[in-house]
């Protein structure tokens, strides 16, 4: 009976420990983000107050200023948002088309040096953005596509293709080969078999690969900060810098723009989280 008792006690203690550790972890994960959201609704005076004010008041000033146009230290948020949206959506679309075709090649064909090609493609993704931005800056300046949507779109397509290949490869491999064989016996060409049978089955997976690509473009800073200069092409991550002056930072305004940046990402990620995880692990585990 004694031993039963000790085991019972130990289990209870572990339960308490487990719960507190989990709570602490979740707090650490959530608080920074919530802090940003909270401060986007606080007046600057209160943010800067010394000693700190812990009971927040509510104001929409920062949002009003942000959407209020370029006057009064406002930042051209609409342009940045539009630039981000155009660049991210277009580059995602192209990257998915190209990446899907590559992923399909890896999933369905056997050829010599396959894993070599695969790792090789991945390595291009590993090139640090800063290191790439130096020569790209010069090349793009020569070609004349610096500070344009096109330039940024090209870069993001190249950046997203390798990882899209990784993900779609995994999704296509989950689909049994017999499926397109059956479709071909039923009279489809290989092309039809892909679009009518395999693509619809892999659709949710492709969608999550698209979200991943979109987020990468949406959030990218290192390259965008060098390849864009003007209101006509700057994206939101670059726009965040507009809130910093030499020695001061407009924290409230920045928080407001940050919230604007996070919301689309938040929605998209939640929509596909399940497929996202499945794709990442499957592509990786089943060699």
């Amino acid at each position, binding site marked *: 009976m004694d031993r039963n008792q000790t085991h019972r006690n130990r289990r209870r203690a572990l339960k308490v420990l487990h719960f507190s550790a989990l709570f602490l972890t*979740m707090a650490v994960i959530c608080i920074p983000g919530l802090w940003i959201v909270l401060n986007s609704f606080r007046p600057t005076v209160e943010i800067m107050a010394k000693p700190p004010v812990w009971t927040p008041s509510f104001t929409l000033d920062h949002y009003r200023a942000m959407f209020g146009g370029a006057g009064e230290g406002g930042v051209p948020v609409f342009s940045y948002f539009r630039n981000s949206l155009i660049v991210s959506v277009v580059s995602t679309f192209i990257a998915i*088309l190209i990446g899907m075709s590559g992923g399909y090649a890896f999933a369905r064909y056997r050829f010599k040096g396959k894993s070599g090609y695969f790792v090789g493609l991945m390595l291009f993704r590993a090139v640090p953005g800063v290191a790439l931005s130096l020569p790209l800056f010069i090349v793009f300046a020569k070609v004349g596509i610096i500070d344009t949507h096109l330039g940024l779109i090209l870069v993001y397509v190249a950046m997203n293709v390798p990882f899209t290949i990784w993900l779609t490869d995994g999704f296509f491999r989950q689909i049994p080969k017999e499926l397109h064989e059956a479709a071909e016996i039923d009279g489809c060409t290989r092309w039809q078999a892909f679009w009518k049978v395999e693509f619809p089955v892999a659709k949710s997976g492709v969608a999550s690969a698209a979200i991943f690509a979109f987020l990468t473009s949406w959030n990218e*800073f290192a390259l965008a900060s060098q390849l864009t200069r003007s209101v006509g092409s700057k994206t939101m991550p670059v726009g965040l810098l507009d809130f910093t002056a030499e020695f001061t930072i407009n924290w409230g305004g920045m928080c407001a723009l940050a919230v604007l940046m996070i919301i689309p990402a938040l929605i998209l990620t939640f929509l596909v989280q399940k497929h996202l995880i499945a794709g990442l692990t499957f592509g990786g585990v089943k060699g």
Partner: protein
Amino acid sequence: MPRRRLPEWFLLLLPAIIVIAAVVLIPLIFSLYSSFTPYKLTRPSTLWKWIGTYNYEKILTDAKFWAAFGRTVLFLTIALNLEMLLGLGIALMVNKVTWGQRTLRTILMFPMMFSPILVGFQFKFIFNDNIGLVNNALQSMGFNVALPWLVDGKLAMFSIAFAEIWMSTSVFAILILAGLFAMPRDPLEAAKVDGCTPWQSFRHITLPFLMPFIYIAMTIRSLDVARAYDIVQIMTGGGPARRTELLWTLMSRTGYVDARMGLANAMGYVSILLSIFFTVYFFRKLSAARAEIGMGS
């Protein structure tokens, strides 16, 4: 003469190869070339002057470069390992939970959606010595201090690492959690019956099974190690007095502020090799771990 047709797989891969060649490979070749010249943005003619390995010799004998290089490697090693351990811990905790697992997993994904630069600003704000959350909280709890989180060299490094780990631990936690969900329960129960303590079950059964997932996370992470640049650039810019200088910030300063592109590109190549090293290393580990648990194709 009948033209030999290219194989289908190659045609399918061709767009990817073309776009990567155009946007990544060609600039890289250009930067490789320019790293052998004294190219300065301000004096374009310098691009045509060949100086051999002078730039490389210069950075290899530069103490500041080595300091940044060493700091980068150390930073990555510590950050990746901590992220892995914390991610593992979080995944195990969430896996044990019996209620609201989906909600917890969703919360876990939260930092994944943050732009690295946003993470930088966020923690620059939180660790601000005057109005930051951390110091405010400390002061309200009665500690009469204003810790110079981003000014003191050691504290700044800590703050940066904190931001980096906050941002990237999720990837590990999510992927390892996926591994735990995929894990068959039988071997674990067999181990229990075979006399394993919880720690032994973890060590001998769970961990070997999770290794491929850990390496996938490591590989995905190492594809993007350089995004720490965004964070550092925003939080400290490599300062104060270069005490948080990483390879990437040094490179960007050399290229864009000092306009010495040739030299910066030489550094760029070192950083590329470093990234490639990390990626290849984990890819290797990944295939080995897969073979170990009989998952290879």
